[in-house]
């Protein structure tokens, strides 16, 4: 149920994001979705790609420091209050969200997919399953993006 996310350390300079994307582009790796966290000094690029092992070796060969984290993709109703329902569940279980970002829009559906990073992803999956929240596995996720 968990998805492997690659995180890259980027200095806060023009061209750093491009350099990382070029490595993936040259290796023929498709980015499924991404999010960029930025601070005054540096940025963290978080990526979900089709073939994370190959992406990691390509990036590491290019001298980039890569961190692999397990994140959870959650499906929420694409309507007002859809995310609220999931956050209610998380709040009730006392699960803190480290960060989250929205998935790039896939084919037309009534559902939106969000990526969450928890301190303890296994506990989060258990809680979400108990409350009937749809956690999307990586195979299903990739299938959805590349039908």
């Amino acid at each position: 149920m968990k998805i492997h996310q690659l995180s890259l350390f980027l200095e806060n300079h023009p061209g750093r994001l491009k350099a990382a994307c070029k490595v993936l582009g040259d290796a023929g790796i498709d980015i499924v979705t991404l999010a960029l966290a930025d601070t005054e000094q540096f940025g963290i690029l978080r990526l979900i790609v089709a073939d994370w092992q190959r992406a990691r070796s390509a990036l590491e060969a290019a001298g980039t420091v890569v961190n692999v984290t397990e994140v959870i993709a959650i499906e929420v109703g694409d309507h007002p209050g859809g995310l609220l329902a999931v956050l209610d569940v998380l709040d009730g279980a006392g699960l803190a969200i480290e960060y989250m970002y929205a998935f790039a829009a896939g084919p037309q559906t009534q559902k939106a997919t969000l990526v969450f990073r928890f301190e303890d992803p296994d506990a989060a999956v258990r809680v979400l399953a108990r409350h009937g929240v749809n956690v999307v596995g990586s195979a299903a996720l990739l299938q959805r993006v590349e039908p």
Partner: protein
Amino acid sequence: MTTHADKVTNIVVAGLGGQGVITASDILADAAFHTGLDVKKSEIHGVSQRGGSVTSDVRFGPRVLSPMVPPGKGDFLVVLASDQVENNRQRLRPRGVLITALVSAPCPCGRTLRRMRRVARRSDDMLIIRGVNVFPSQVEAAILGVEGMLPHYQIVLTRDQGLDQIEVRVEITPAVFSDTVRGLEDLRVRLASAIEHTLGLRVVVYLVESRSLERSEGKASRVLDRREGVASPEVSHP
């Protein structure tokens, strides 16, 4: 170059009669004596009164037996006359330091004697930051004290409104890279406090990409001194 406490330091001063070779070595010996070290000194001034060669050896350390610096054992060779450099060069040890810089042009004050240039820089890598003596190796030790870090760093010195500022750039390693901003800010704080604790100086730590800093030994690339007026003092009155 480091001068170890348990080692004898050998200095050879050379020049011509009347230049102050003996006076210079007297001052050196006196200074060493006042630090509580054993000091021995010898002089050769055969035809000095006709402007001939003069040399003087100064040796100091915890215990010095002979007053002569053995051939090829000089740590420092100070030469006051440019034509005396070659015939004294063999007294220096490999990687010994030759100090000689003479100005023949008359001084603006009217004196016509040759003058020695002001001392330009240190021969070791010690830095003086806000009056505090700092060795880059201290910064390195502090960084290595933080788990998972490698000794890939650069010290950047600037001056803001008359006050020295130190910035330490440290390469991120796979072992310490976190996907959360909080994790990296944590690391930055840990590095900064480790360095501050060692140096007694407040520093700004920048995390940089792995392999982004130049790999080389020595002072040049480890330290970027952008403070004005520190690196190269102009020749002034002797």
